[in-house]
């Protein structure tokens, strides 16, 4: 990813973060006006602190300075040195507004604004600093701003972060900057807002999480998402309909009551008839006939009644199902955003890179209005960027070469999106030189993935699969743009992470096409329902290889490990109850229901109690209070009301691997993959409560090929680090719930985790802060300034080496 693009998204991220933090400051200050409670000051301190750091990263020096003095005041207030009166709170609120104003500025408008408003900013800062020094100091002149020392001068220089990546920066800097590529659902805020304007109104309604314990739930439930008004109207219509429909059931239930009464009468008839026959000879035959006739009549009536009720019940059921389906569809579509929301940066990317390479390329998007789940859309940007770069760099020929091949000088890269059979298909096609499968075949042999005989038998499709192996690149020379070992495997892992797949087709000399097949939504998955330890669990269907019944006698044992044979492969068997730490149900006997799961290098058979069937589940997140539960990634509800846990297959495969002590069933392709697995990319966990910093670190690390996961605070980080395997943890110090020092301390006290190196990256650059971090056990202590040069990345490489050997 070019530094330009990451800058764009960083500013957007900053804007997003500022929105939340400013809202917290606003409502915090308002609350402070009514009562001075230390509990309200603490979150404001954090908000100002985070704003300061985030503003520094995006180069909004003025916002950084204002946030800095605000933070000072809050610190002073918390320690009791300063008591705020309404007038002073007013001053602080104006400072908050000023930051809001800066954050709302259009990217290109910032320099002009800074020039025009320098005095106003200095004035506001002076007034805020004056509060701390008490009434006497309030009269001092405005240029007396000692709380912002040389920092301002230092930072004006680097208006934006420019990670000194070796990649080429495609854009011409003198050019006017286009509207930034925004994350989903966030539009650039209009720059022409009035001075002293409040942040957008919607923000003001967000409550500040005051009690730390309620923090997480409030944060998640208050996440604002964009839903079209039309969509919401239809939802309301459906809600109304379902209310009416639900009430229609009542008369049917009453009718069944009547039916029951009718059957009661019939019972009476039969009893009378029975009595009459019992009396034997002296019974009048007419009497029996009369009773029988009555019984027949009652049966008739009940049957008619029943038929009518059933008709009504059936039409109710039909309407109910239809309604539920429409409601479901509507809710799903409320989560969809048009693909173009995530592709705004691509035309620019293609133009810039093509120009730099001296190639002529046209870029078309088809089906830009295709709905994509917002969660998926977020994840698509990186892999598509990657594919486009690949196409530009490797596939598209220079104009002369194209002309020689009889092709138009201008090449075409086309991005198409459509819904196919309930899946989202995204196809990136180029009309470049295509991929030479014979070269792949040669490389497969050269790399020792297969011998010559075997390689000769591989089909084109099988050969193309090798492109997705980490580090398997057909381009010999490493260029600035691509081919750095961060390859198509990244694209594949993104697709797989959301339950999709990638397929590549190519014609030599004619072009290549990558097709990503992804679920339309992440919120509903097709799943296989199984029972484990007597309770329901679900496997996402897309992540299952096979479902089998294995007979007891087919199970073999070597060195105490059970396995069975499937297509000439030995597949290790493990009991799901054992993996999930549940009481083992019945001993393995008779026919074992087995779910076969795999990741790129391993295949396992998981024995479950029973397989219950296939169904759609709407996925909900696990309660954040539980932290990361191993092998589980989400939860849903079954028709009968039972909660069901949805299995994280990737995690499960890792756990099984651990359980079996790393013994795996290996086949040819698996062996190849396994050998590349040794070279798997190193994984880094980034823990920071500021989304701006988090994403910056992620961008920097991912550009170097590291796999990055993020956690939003210390506690989240602690849960995450325990739940996965990481080669390195990068943590901030000041975070809610658990700070970085505590996190480091806990990691270093844990027997299993203590060997993981931890890098602290903080704004605090005093010697005692550094000492505190290192004493807690951190392996390195960096300041956030280290992003501006190579220090951060060099430190990471020193500690754990390059992303992959």
């Amino acid at each position: 990813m070019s530094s330009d693009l990451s800058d764009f998204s960083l500013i957007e991220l900053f804007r997003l973060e500022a929105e939340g933090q400013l809202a917290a400051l606003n409502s915090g200050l308002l609350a402070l006006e009514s009562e001075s409670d230390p509990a309200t000051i603490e979150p404001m301190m954090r908000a100002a602190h985070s704003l300061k750091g985030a503003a520094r990263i995006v180069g909004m020096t003025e916002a950084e300075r204002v946030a800095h003095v605000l933070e000072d005041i809050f610190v002073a207030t918390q320690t009791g040195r300063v008591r705020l009166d309404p007038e002073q709170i007013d001053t602080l609120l104006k400072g908050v507004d000023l930051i809001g104003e800066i954050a709302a500025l259009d990217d290109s408008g910032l320099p002009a604004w800074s020039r025009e408003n320098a005095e106003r900013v200095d004035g506001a800062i002076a007034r805020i600093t004056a509060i701390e020094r008490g009434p006497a100091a309030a009269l001092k002149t405005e240029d007396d701003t000692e709380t912002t020392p040389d920092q301002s001068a230092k930072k004006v220089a680097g208006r934006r972060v420019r990670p000194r990546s070796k990649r080429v920066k495609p854009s011409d800097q003198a050019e006017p900057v286009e509207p930034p590529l925004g994350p989903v659902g966030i539009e650039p805020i209009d720059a022409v807002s009035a001075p002293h304007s409040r942040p957008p109104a919607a923000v003001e309604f967000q409550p500040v999480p005051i009690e730390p314990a309620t923090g997480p739930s409030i944060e998640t439930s208050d996440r604002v998402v964009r839903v079209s008004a039309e969509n919401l109207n239809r939802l309301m219509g459906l809600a109304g309909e379902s209310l009416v429909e639900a009430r229609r059931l009542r008369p049917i239930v009453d009718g069944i009551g009547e039916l029951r009464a009718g059957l009661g009468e019939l019972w009476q008839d039969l009893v009378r008839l029975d009595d009459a026959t019992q009396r034997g000879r002296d019974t009048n035959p007419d009497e029996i006939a009369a009773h029988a006739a009555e019984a027949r009549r009652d049966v008739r009536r009940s049957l008619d009644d029943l038929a009518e009720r059933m008709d009504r019940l059936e039409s109710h059921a039909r309407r109910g199902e239809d309604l539920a389906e429409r409601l479901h569809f509507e809710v799903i579509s409320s989560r969809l955003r048009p693909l173009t929301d995530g592709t705004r940066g691509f035309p620019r990317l293609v133009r810039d890179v093509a120009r730099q390479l001296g190639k002529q390329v046209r870029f078309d998007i088809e089906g830009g209005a295709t709905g994509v789940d917002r969660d998926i859309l977020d994840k698509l940007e990186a892999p598509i960027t990657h594919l486009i770069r690949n196409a530009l760099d490797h596939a598209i020929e220079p104009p002369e070469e194209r002309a020689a091949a009889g092709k138009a000088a201008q090449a075409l890269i086309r991005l198409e999106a459509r819904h196919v059979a309930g899946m989202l298909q995204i196809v990136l096609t180029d009309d470049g030189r295509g991929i030479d499968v014979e070269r792949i075949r040669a490389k497969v042999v050269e790399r020792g993935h297969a011998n010559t005989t075997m390689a000769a038998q591989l089909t084109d499709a099988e050969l193309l699969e090798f492109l997705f192996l980490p580090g398997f690149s057909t381009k010999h020379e490493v260029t600035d743009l691509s081919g750095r070992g961060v390859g198509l495997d990244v694209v594949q892992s993104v697709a797989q992470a959301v339950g999709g797949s990638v397929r590549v087709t190519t014609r030599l000399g004619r072009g290549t096409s990558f097709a990503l097949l992804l679920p339309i939504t992440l919120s509903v998955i097709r799943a296989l329902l199984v029972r484990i330890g007597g309770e329901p669990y679900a496997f996402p269907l897309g992540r299952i290889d096979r479902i089998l019944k294995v007979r007891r006698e087919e199970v073999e044992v070597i060195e105490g490990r059970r396995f069975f044979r499937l297509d000439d492969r030995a597949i290790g068997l493990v009991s799901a109850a054992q993996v999930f730490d549940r009481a083992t149900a019945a001993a393995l006997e008779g026919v074992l229901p087995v779910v076969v799961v795999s990741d790129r290098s391993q295949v396992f058979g998981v024995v479950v109690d029973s397989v219950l069937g296939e169904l759609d589940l709407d996925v909900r997140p696990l309660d954040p209070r539980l932290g990361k539960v191993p092998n589980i990634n989400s939860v849903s509800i079954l028709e009968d009301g039972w909660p069901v846990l949805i299995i994280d297959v990737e995690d499960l495969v890792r756990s099984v691997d651990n359980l079996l002590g790393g013994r795996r069933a290996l086949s040819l392709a698996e062996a190849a993959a396994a050998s590349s697995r040794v070279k798997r990319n190193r994984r880094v966990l980034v823990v920071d409560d500021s989304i701006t910093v988090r994403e910056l670190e992620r961008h920097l690390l991912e550009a170097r090929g590291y796999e990055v996961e993020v956690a939003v605070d210390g506690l989240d980080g602690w849960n995450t680090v325990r739940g996965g395997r990481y080669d390195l943890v990068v943590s901030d110090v000041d975070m809610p719930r658990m700070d970085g020092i505590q996190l480091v301390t806990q990691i270093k006290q844990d027997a299993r985790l203590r060997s993981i190196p931890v890098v602290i990256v903080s704004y605090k650059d005093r010697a005692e802060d550094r000492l505190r971090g290192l004493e807690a056990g951190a392996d390195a202590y960096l300041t956030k300034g280290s992003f501006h040069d190579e220090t951060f990345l060099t430190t990471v490489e020193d500690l754990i080496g390059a992303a992959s050997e």
Partner: protein
Amino acid sequence: MSQDVLDDAADERTRAFFDRPPPEGYLEEWTERLAAPDDPPEPDVRSLLIFRLGAEWLALPTAQLSEVTSPQPIHSVPHRSNEGLLGLVNIRGQIRLCVSLHHVLGVDPAATSRRVTPPRMIILQDHGEQWVFPVDEVTRAVRLSGSVLRPAPSTLRSGINHTRTVFQWSGRTIGELVLDRLLESLRGLRS
């Protein structure tokens, strides 16, 4: 709305209905009632829900209870071995954490007294924080004045405990749980 309702005659009838004068004395009565000062609030009255755990009778403030429901199936959470954390339950389509108050308060679940009503689940809600716990029986909510509360026996006042006061109700001694302490203990359960 169908067409016939909107025809002119119906329209007129509707208007006549809604615009009819109020009955005699109606306005006066309501003016008087709304102008009257509010009844002074009873001092220190609290509303408590009484429930049973094992052999113990306890009470929690109703303001913090969002629902009492029939028992729902509890799905255990793998790798979370804390006995107090029972698992996940479905409460009206929302997945909630279910905990064992028996475990938190050290009540023997086996000890039962004569059951009058079926077991229930109580949903505790405080500032967006929700906990669900099964109880053996819920009797009713009561309103009582703070003056009937007595300090809990001194044996309960040492160490960590959740009951500060007790009261008599229907011939039983009922312990009033201190919400904050209870929440604190519940939060301690999660990992």
